[in-house]
Structure formats: C-alpha cells, structure tokens
C-alpha cells in the first residue's frame, strides 16, 4: 500500500494545540517562569488554533487524511470553534481561581489542552477508532482535572465518581463499537453507512447502536444516565465544572451526530423514537429537579442536563435544520454556561466561594457588575430574547416542527417555562431580597472579568444578530 502524502495544512488546528501543550509542558519545568505565563501561552495557542479553524471554515476546506481516518470538514471545524472558545474562556476564568490555593498550574493547563485535543479528534474522527481514542484522551484528562484539588476531599470524591462512571460508560461505548464492527464488518463511518444500506439491520447492529446510545448518554449526561453530573460539578473545582459542562458535552454530541447521522442514517426508524423519548425525559427530569436545588453549582448541573435534552430535540429531528440548530445551540450553550459558572467564581468570599443561592441576596446593589453578569447568563439560559439562548431554542424548536415532532416541541416549550422559574429565582434573590448576613466579597480578578465580558458580549451579539453564527452552522452540515 502506498503511503499517502500528508496534507499538514488540514491538521493545523490540532497541530497548534499539540505544539502548545508541548511548550506548556517544557516551560513548566523552569521555576524562574511565572506560572501565570503558562495560562497566557495556553490562551495564545488556543486563539491561534481558533483563528486557523475560522479561516479554514471560511475557505470551506474539506479533506480526509491518514487512510480515511481523519476527516476535516466544516462540521469538524465548527466544532473546533466551540471547543476552542470554551477552552479560552475556561482558562481566563482559571487564572485567578488557581492563585487562591497556590495550586500547581502547569499540569492544569496541560490537561486542559489535552482534553481539547481529544475533543477535536472526536469531532474529526472518520473512523470509530479515532472517535474512541479522542473520547478517552478527553475523558482521562477530565478525570484528573475533576480531582485536581487533591487536598480537598470533595474534589477527590468528584474525581473518583467521574472516573468510575466515565470508565463504565466508555466500556459500553467500546462494546457498542465491537458489535457494530460485527454487524457491518468495518469501523469506518462512511463504509458502515454503505454496508447498512446493502444489508438489512441485524440484531448485532441494533444492540451495538443501543450500547452507543448508552455510552454517549453517560458522556453528555442524558437522563437516565445523568446521576454523576451533579456530584461531579459540585465537587470539582468550579472552573473544571464549567469546562466539563461545556466542551466535552459538545464533543459528545459532535461524535453522536457524526455516527448517527452519517454512519447509521438507515437505522433512523429504530433510533429516532428512542432519542425523542430520551429528549423528553432529559428535559423534564433536569428542569424539575433543578427547582429543588439550594446549591448553585448543583442547580447549574441539573440545568446543563436539561440543556442536553434541548440539543437532543435537534438530533431527534434528524434533518439538516436539526443538525445545524443543534450545533448553534451547543455553541450558545457553551458560552452562556461557562459565563454562569464564571459569575459563580466571581462571587467569592473570604472563606471560599458562596455556593448557596441564598448567599446571592442583595448582590444587585452591593455588587452590581457581578449581578449583571449573572443575570445576563441566567436569562440567556432561560431563553429570554434578546439573548443567544432564545435564538438557540427558537431554531431547535423550528427544526423539530419542520420534522413533524409537534409534541416534542410542546414539551420543550413547557420545560422552558419551568426552567424560567429557577433561573429567575436567582435573579430575584439578587435584586429584591435583603441579605441575612453581611458577606465580605473579595475584589474582582481582571482576567475573570475579561472572560465574563467576552461571554456576555458573545451572548448578546448572537442574540441580536443570530445570522452571525446561524449561517456558519447551516454551512457546516456534512
């Protein structure tokens, strides 16, 4: 077999991230270098990769590399943008957060970059091996990050829970791949699609497909596979909770879309019903349990479960509109969810973070900037116009109506109403309730405020000019 010429230009975003993580790894060895520099290196590397991805997306670059294993197209490039924006925002939030306890910073940024690289591989995988390796690269880095504050028992516990359930899910995912390999005789995504048209669906394929749904369900926290999410978000460092809730969820959905829409479209009759059921269950359970939460990180965890349900509506619609609206929603969701966690990090008192929703009472007058950021993010999560959350939900529901899933849209709309209750409760607590005890809040860190300004501007910009991101998303359907 001749060795094919490698087109390095197609791999630029991945190569830039790989190079950045090597640079961070080496520079971490020098004690004379301030560890803050490593954070800036990470941001610069991710920003270059983001810029390259955007350029390639604008040029419409398409190509398959490494013996049909690695596919660069607008779909993977759009997801690269989501991952890299999430990474940049999370690193901006992390820089002041890590200063608090004099934590080791080098490995932290290294692991974030490794996780980002894993996500990019997942979105670009044209072969189930690559998707699996990307998933594991991402997950293994995240297990360590969730348990990163070793001296904090809650963080270690979160790491262990994430590890056990995540590895359990990976095993399901892997067994699903094995059965699909048995049923289709290949692990290449386009080849599977061809094989399944030729033959009728075998029990092996169906079993494999359901195992894949279970595996993805764990990774993106779909009910009934969501139990790990609240515990991990609560125990993990808040910056990492923001990271886990954003990029990896988008990466899980990227592979989910790629495998189900591209490799298994001919089994749509079997999976679309399951996805509709899971979407309804996920939205309802996530939103209803979120109402009962008193800890803001747990509330955001259940809210992120509910948002996975909204994205599933787009998947269940299973047409071009559904795919593009799910992609737009994931982008919007990542920005606003990281923003909401960023506002939680900003609300820091002398004895640590104030995580109880009741602690936020009276912030509207005492900390107007913080209250404003928090309100913008929560209103966007609830889906009020003119924020990005509204745009995202609107196009998701529109796609589902176009596909004829009226009931799904009705349940989604009802859930949006339920979710408004608990998001607005926080806003009301901030602006209308007097604090029971006077909490001493620490001064703002500048990098944190920069990150929040970027997130807030992004949320409002997409909300006012939806076509800015909608058109690229529509151009990105494979």
């Amino acid at each position: 077999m001749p060795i094919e010429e490698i087109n390095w230009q197609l791999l630029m975003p991945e190569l830039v991230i790989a190079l950045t993580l090597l640079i961070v790894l080496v520079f971490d060895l020098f004690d004379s270098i301030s560890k803050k520099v490593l954070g800036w290196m990470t941001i610069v590397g991710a920003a270059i990769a983001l810029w390259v991805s955007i350029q390639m997306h604008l040029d419409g670059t398409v190509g398959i590399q490494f013996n049909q294993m690695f596919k660069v197209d607008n779909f993977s490039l759009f997801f690269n943008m989501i991952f890299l924006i999430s990474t940049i925002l999370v690193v901006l939030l992390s820089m002041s957060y890590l200063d608090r306890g004099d934590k080791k910073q080098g490995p932290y940024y290294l692991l974030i970059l490794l996780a980002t690289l894993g996500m990019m591989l997942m979105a670009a995988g044209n072969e189930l091996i690559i998707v699996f390796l990307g998933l594991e690269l991402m997950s293994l880095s995240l297990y360590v990050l969730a348990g990163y504050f070793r001296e904090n028992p809650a963080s270690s516990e979160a790491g262990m829970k994430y590890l056990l359930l995540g590895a359990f899910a990976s095993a399901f995912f892997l067994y699903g791949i094995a059965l699909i390999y048995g049923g289709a005789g290949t692990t290449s995504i386009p080849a599977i699609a061809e094989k399944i048209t030729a033959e009728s669906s075998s029990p092996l394929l169906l079993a494999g497909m359901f195992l894949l749904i279970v595996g993805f369900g764990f990774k993106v926290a779909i009910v009934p596979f969501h139990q790990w999410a609240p515990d991990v978000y609560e125990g993990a460092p808040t910056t990492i909770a923001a990271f886990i809730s954003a990029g990896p969820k988008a990466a899980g959905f990227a592979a989910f879309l790629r495998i189900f829409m591209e490799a298994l479209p001919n089994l749509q009759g079997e999976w679309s019903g399951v996805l509709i059921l899971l979407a309804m269950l996920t939205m309802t359970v996530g939103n209803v349990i979120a109402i009962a939460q008193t800890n803001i990180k747990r509330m955001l965890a259940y809210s992120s479960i509910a948002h996975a349900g909204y994205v599933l509506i787009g998947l269940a619609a299973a047409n071009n509109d559904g795919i593009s609206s799910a992609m737009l929603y994931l982008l919007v969701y990542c920005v606003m969810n990281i923003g909401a966690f960023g506002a939680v990090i900003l609300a820091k008192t002398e004895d640590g973070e104030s995580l109880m929703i009741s602690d936020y009472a009276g912030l509207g007058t005492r900390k107007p900037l913080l209250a404003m950021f928090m309100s913008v993010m929560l209103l966007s999560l609830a889906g009020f116009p003119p924020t990005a959350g509204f745009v995202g939900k609107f196009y998701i529901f529109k796609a589902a109506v176009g596909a004829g899933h009226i009931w799904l849209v009705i349940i989604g709309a009802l859930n949006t109403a339920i979710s408004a209750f608990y998001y607005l409760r926080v806003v009301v607590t901030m602006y209308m309730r007097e604090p029971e005890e006077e909490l001493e809040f620490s001064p703002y860190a500048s990098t944190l405020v920069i990150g929040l300004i970027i997130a807030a501007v992004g949320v409002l910009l997409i909300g006012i000019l939806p076509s800015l991101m909608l058109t690229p998303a529509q151009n990105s359907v494979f």
Partner: protein
Amino acid sequence: MLLEYYLILSALLFTIGVIGVLVRRNAIIIFMCIELMLNAANLAFVAISRNLGETTGQVFVFFVMAVAAAEVAIGLAIIVSVFKHRQTINVDEINSLKG
C-alpha cells in the same frame, strides 16, 4: 470456528462486568469489573476480526489495551487520593456530595 460461541462468551463476560460494577461496593473491584467489560469487547473484536479475515479489529484491541492501561494508572491514583482523605474506598461511604 463458530463466531457465535465467541460472541456469547464475550457477552457473558460483559454482563458479569456490568453486574459487578452495579453490585460490588469496593472501588477497586468496580474498577476490575470495568476492565472485564473492556476485555469482553476485546474478545469480540478479535473473534469478529478473525471471522472476517481482516485486521482492523486486532489493531483496535491494541489501542484498547493501551487506553485501559492509562485508565488504570489514573484510576488508581485517584482512588489512592480518596483513600488518604477517608481511609476507605467503599463507594457507599464516600457520599459527601449529595443534594
């Protein structure tokens, strides 16, 4: 060679692994059961690969073995750090995160 026998054996191993994860409470035993599930998948890959007369599945197994080794390295480190805090690795007793 009958592929069915191998697939049944691998499905049995996988099921034993799943039941082990759900029933056992010791974090290390849970971890071993997850390894059993991964190896069940490996067995299926190798059997199917041999049946088809091509090597994709066997290459896949190498990757899975490497990934499993990395997972063990990270997993044991995290379990040790939990043990340092609580002197136990019984997952029922490690439940400070609840809501």
